[in-house]
């Protein structure tokens, strides 16, 4: 908190200006924000605006919106929006679904908690290319997953080089990511709330649905949002363990082709802008939902 000493009768001058600015939260501490603001401006805001402008200057001519017109008139390209959503939304939902019970469980101390937590965070450290390479071995027709299925009499399943492969690869990174987020958020929920609910006559189900869950929902929506953001940028696993020419032909693939194979930066920028807009629409819907929910602290009192 900033202490504001009323200026009183003293003559309005530089000191007065400083104090009245300080009262509005403007003071020398703001200098500390400069590196972050400069970083964002240089590496994000400027390139992005630049990208938007060059996306409106198509290399082949045909008017400012030619790139966008091309994208939406080509069914194969248009389909990438749907392909991306079809992967990112379920993958984010399933990963939050997996991470939720785990994060809920590690709220309580138990033997081996640290080991389990570490185990779940491990895939985050590998990177998606390494994970995808590993998957091609494990899920290959003669990989151990299919051998295991075969040994118990189940039919062979095609796990990789299709939608499923990319989906599994996405889960491998989004599940631990969601777990990490949710575990932190759930940890901040005051545990005596459950005790209080119990003494008031709430059984385990009522304690969960009436007390814990409402306090967890904002965290779940945040985790879902970030998982979607992460899944939206899917590229390595879509190429390495997916079907990059059809089922997993996601937005990032034509983007990469335009930029790195055809060197058509204008077209690539247009696809990037489309990708951003689609993502922003999804996020706007989620934040809209979140703003309707309880957003206060998940603890009570000073405790």
């Amino acid at each position, binding site marked *: 908190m900033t202490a504001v000493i009323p200026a009183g009768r003293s003559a309005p001058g530089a000191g007065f200006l400083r104090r009245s600015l300080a009262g509005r939260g403007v003071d020398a501490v703001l200098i500390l924000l400069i590196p972050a603001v400069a970083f964002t401006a240089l590496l994000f805001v400027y390139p992005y605006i630049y990208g938007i402008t060059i996306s409106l200057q198509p290399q082949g001519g045909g008017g400012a919106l030619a790139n966008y017109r091309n994208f939406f008139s080509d069914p194969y390209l248009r389909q990438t929006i749907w392909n991306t959503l079809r992967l990112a939304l379920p993958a984010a939902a399933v990963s939050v679904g997996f991470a939720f019970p785990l994060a809920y469980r590690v709220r309580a101390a138990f033997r081996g908690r640290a080991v389990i937590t570490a185990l779940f965070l491990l895939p985050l450290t590998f990177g998606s290319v390494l994970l995808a390479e590993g998957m091609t071995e494990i899920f290959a027709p003669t990989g151990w997953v299919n051998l295991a299925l075969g040994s118990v009499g189940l039919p062979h399943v095609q796990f990789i080089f299709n939608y499923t492969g990319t989906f599994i690869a996405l889960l491998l990174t989004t599940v631990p990511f969601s777990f990490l987020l949710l575990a932190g958020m759930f940890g901040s929920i005051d545990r005596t709330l459950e005790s*209080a*609910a119990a003494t*008031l*006559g709430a*059984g385990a189900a009522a304690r969960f649905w*009436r007390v814990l869950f409402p306090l967890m929902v904002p965290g779940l929506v945040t985790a879902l949002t970030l998982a979607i953001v992460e899944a939206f940028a899917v590229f390595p696993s879509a190429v390495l363990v997916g079907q990059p020419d059809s089922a997993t032909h996601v937005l990032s693939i034509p983007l990469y082709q335009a930029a790195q194979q055809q060197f058509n930066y204008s077209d690539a920028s247009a696809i990037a802008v489309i990708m951003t807009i689609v993502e922003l629409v999804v996020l706007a819907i989620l934040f809209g939902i979140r703003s309707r929910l309880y957003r206060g602290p998940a603890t009570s009192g000073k*405790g």
Partner: protein
Amino acid sequence: MRHVSRSFGKTEALRDLDLVLAAGEFVALLGPSGCGKSTALACLAGLQPLSGGEIWIDKRRLDTLPAERRGFGMVFQSYALFPHLTVQKNVEFGLRMRKVKAAQRHERALAALRTVQLEDHAQKHPAQLSGGQQQRVAIARALAIEPDIVLMDEPLSNLDAALRIGLRTEIKRLHQNLGLTTLYVTHDQEEALSLADRVVILRDGCVEQAGTPEAVYNRPVSPYVAKFMGYRNVLAAHAASGGDAGEVVEVRRGAQVLHATAVEPITAGSEVTIAVRPEDVLVSSIDDNGLVAVAEVVEFMGREIQVGAGLPDGQVLHLRTEKPVAAGDSIRIGVPRQRLLAYAGNAA
């Protein structure tokens, strides 16, 4: 509670604790942190399982029931209000769990809020209230379910001094008006003495002394209880003469001889512990019950001053006086013999 015990691994938090509450009684469990008082409350509420023993209420056995079926109202140190619900919904929570109809639920919640004078804040969220108001909501929430027993776990410890005294009076008034059986856990002797009909002092999971506030205040059974009851001066000495409980015995500290009242039988020549409150030490000589000391630290306390006086053997005796004493003064100290308590053994 009968022979209740609770262990955490090898540490016993409660040992064979027996506690009987009469209807309408206000009992305070008092002790320093780690004495097992909060564990006792959690066990009673069903928030922690018992390692042994039984809990009965009238003819109903409780220790086999989960917390949600025991029907106690509990107030927590951290208030534990549901932050996503309004004040009224918080108070209604227990009634909703009991499937009370909406109209009746409203009425009872508002009635409970009225008893803590917060009916105007019914539609606010807990975060919009002050700490004292939040704790009053928590009390209303516990009262709304009309519990057999109200359990309070250090309800005033999170509040600042002024609010604490205000809410303490409020709790006393509620108990006087509603006559609810209450078990109150605290580490603050003043709270326990001012609120309770009966004070139970715990030590290492066992009852050290139980009795009326007057009894524990005036006749602490051990140096442990004495220290808790404001006997700030607890010193080691030797018995020059023996005596039964209640008799005056002679005790010696170095060359000085004092007369003290034996709390328990004391044999001549044994080690004893003597205890006296700072406010019972007088700056003047009392016939044959005096000491000489040097005032070392003098603190102004308003009506009186608090003096830390050094005895010849280096021990410090704390006393309160209205007489002008300055640091460095050599003073004569008198202790009324009925105010100086002697316990067998060295516990200083």
